[in-house]
């Protein structure tokens, strides 16, 4: 089945080659990081988690979001999503793989990572995150493999796979909940110590992930004969609309509690994020870009006229994706450390090696999505060979 990813035209191979160059650069800098230590990054004694852990957190959301096409299809018999579930599941596989890679590159002693398995520690949330992420990866590999094999034979997938699918629906919720618990259970970090963190993570995931899926479908429509169908796209767009609205609502809840209660150790983090603290405001312009993108996306999504217009929908989905990426992939993790528990402000910004290592991991994810989608489309004969390209 995998051999289908090894056939393609010039455009496909230039895209694959481009990704391989990015991956190679990331790998080169990772070797340097192994040699020098994590001191090669912008992290510090005060801001001890940075870009890597933030990307991990963001991508757990993208992985979990597959459930937004799987659940309506299997539990509510939404037939329009029939062609899409496999794309969601394959996207989830690529995303979880990126998550695991981001954890590995963040470890100071990656060669010892099996210690998590050798000394299982149920009172550590990180242990449970390892369990749920690997479990979710396994579930999606099983589901997508079985459904693709069935499709190749032109059969219906076996009945038992439904049970696995139902399990994966619950499991998707668990991966982002447990990931939120990594943060929201720490008394030392008031910024994260909020019960709304897990719901907020889920809402933002169910906006950003499906938004990415819409973008991928629109790209596939141009590059191949695969057409998700207008009905499916408009249904996902509606899901993105509700999820984004709920996400913004949750953020406003946080802002109200922080600014109205005026408890300094809670408020200072929000001040740092949106206004700047003691002359430090590196994240402020980013956060306001995130706010503006969120507003633009909501205006375009809530208005049915713009939502049904695919050009406007593309803009809205990009806005949703980057707004949430800034919020989770840039602001959320770092701000938990600024100010530090002693009330001192030490700022963080990723270094070039750190950024390139991260880009390399995103390159691996993009390569996986490209190869997987190519296989899926080839099996259905929807590749559109003359113009066939990656995603």
């Amino acid at each position, binding site marked *: 089945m995998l051999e289908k990813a090894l056939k393609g035209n010039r455009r496909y191979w230039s895209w694959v080659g481009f990704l391989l160059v990015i991956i190679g650069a990331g790998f080169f800098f990772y070797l340097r990081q192994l040699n020098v*230590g994590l001191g090669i990054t912008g992290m510090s004694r005060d801001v001890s988690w940075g870009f890597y852990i933030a990307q991990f957190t963001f991508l757990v959301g993208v992985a979990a979001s597959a459930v937004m096409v799987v659940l309506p299809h299997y539990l509510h018999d939404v037939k329009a999503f029939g062609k899409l579930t496999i794309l969601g599941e394959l996207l989830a596989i690529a995303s979880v793989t990126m998550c695991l890679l981001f954890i590995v590159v963040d*470890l100071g002693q990656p060669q010892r990572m099996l210690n998590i398995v050798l000394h299982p*520690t149920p009172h550590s949330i990180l242990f449970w995150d390892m369990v749920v992420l690997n479990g979710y990866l396994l579930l999606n590999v099983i589901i997508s493999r079985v459904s693709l094999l069935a499709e190749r034979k032109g059969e219906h997938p076996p009945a038992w796979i439904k049970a696995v699918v139902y399990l994966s629906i619950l499991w998707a919720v668990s991966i982002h909940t447990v990931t939120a618990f990594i943060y929201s259970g720490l008394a030392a970090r008031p910024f994260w110590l909020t019960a709304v963190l897990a719901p907020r993570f889920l809402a933002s995931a169910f906006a950003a992930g499906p938004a990415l899926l819409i973008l991928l479908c629109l790209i596939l429509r141009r590059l191949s004969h695969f057409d998700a169908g207008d009905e499916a796209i408009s249904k996902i767009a509606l899901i993105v609309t509700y999820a984004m609205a709920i996400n913004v609502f949750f953020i406003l809840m946080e802002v109200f509690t922080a600014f109205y209660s005026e408890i300094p150790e809670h408020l200072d983090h929000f001040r740092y994020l949106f206004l700047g603290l003691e002359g430090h405001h590196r994240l402020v312009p980013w956060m306001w870009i995130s706010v503006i993108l969120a507003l633009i996306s909501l205006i375009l999504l809530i208005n049915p006229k713009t939502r049904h217009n695919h050009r406007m929908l593309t803009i809205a989905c990009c806005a949703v994706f980057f707004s949430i990426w800034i919020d989770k992939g840039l602001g959320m993790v770092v701000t938990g450390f600024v100010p530090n528990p002693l*009330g001192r402000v030490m700022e963080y910004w990723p270094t070039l090696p750190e950024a390139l290592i991260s880009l390399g991991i995103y390159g691996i994810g993009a390569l996986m999505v490209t190869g997987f989608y190519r296989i899926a489309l080839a099996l259905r004969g929807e590749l559109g060979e003359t113009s066939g390209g990656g995603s």
Partner: protein
Amino acid sequence: MSLDRRGFFRLAGLTAVGAQLPVLSRAGGSGPLEPAGKAIEGKRFAMVIDLAACHEHPECNRCIEACDRSHNIPKIPAEAHEIKWIWKEEFEHAFPASNSPYLKGELAEKPVLLMCNHCDNPPCVRVCPTQATWKREDGVVMMDWHRCIGCRYCIAACPYGSRSFNWVDPRQYLKERNPDFPTRTKGVVEKCNLCEERLAEGKIPACAESCPHGAIHFGDISDPDSPIRKLLEERFAIRRKPVLGTEPQVYYLV
């Protein structure tokens, strides 16, 4: 059953606490092993720092130097990569909740000694995914540098900033080495170990021993007749962020 490293430490700790056995000298070799002094035992170790006594000598860094020397702590020039076991901090940062804008004089202006609080309910131990950090029966919060994977979850969980990560190879910044204590590799977390290696040899922690002004007291807080309990009965003491429920075991006399 094989005895892993942690099991060994636990056994060593229990031996030191309970059995009153002399701890055998580390230098083995041929010939009979000789006891190197009786281990200090206690049900619950704690530290009491007398801020007034410490403030009389603001230029004194004897405790920090003794600790750094004893534990091979490197002097790393980049502030971002510093390793700190015991260090000085301004009062308003050491006790952000106890700060008064009108406070003048020694308390407001002179530094406070900070270190690991060896909490009774340590959040670092709760979050560690490999049990590379754990609490001993006698309250010492330990670190196994050979098991730590460097995930830094414990640093995120510590409300006191007491943990440091080796962002770079620390050995390149060590001018002189104490051969009796291990050096660390890059990529692991470390912190104050309450001089467990000295306790096992019957010595009190290096900071307490080196303080010429009697400002650092160490003892068994579970013993009502211990000198540190007497100090805490007579003078008002504060702890860092006690509201978080971590039960820090470093007390500051004000």
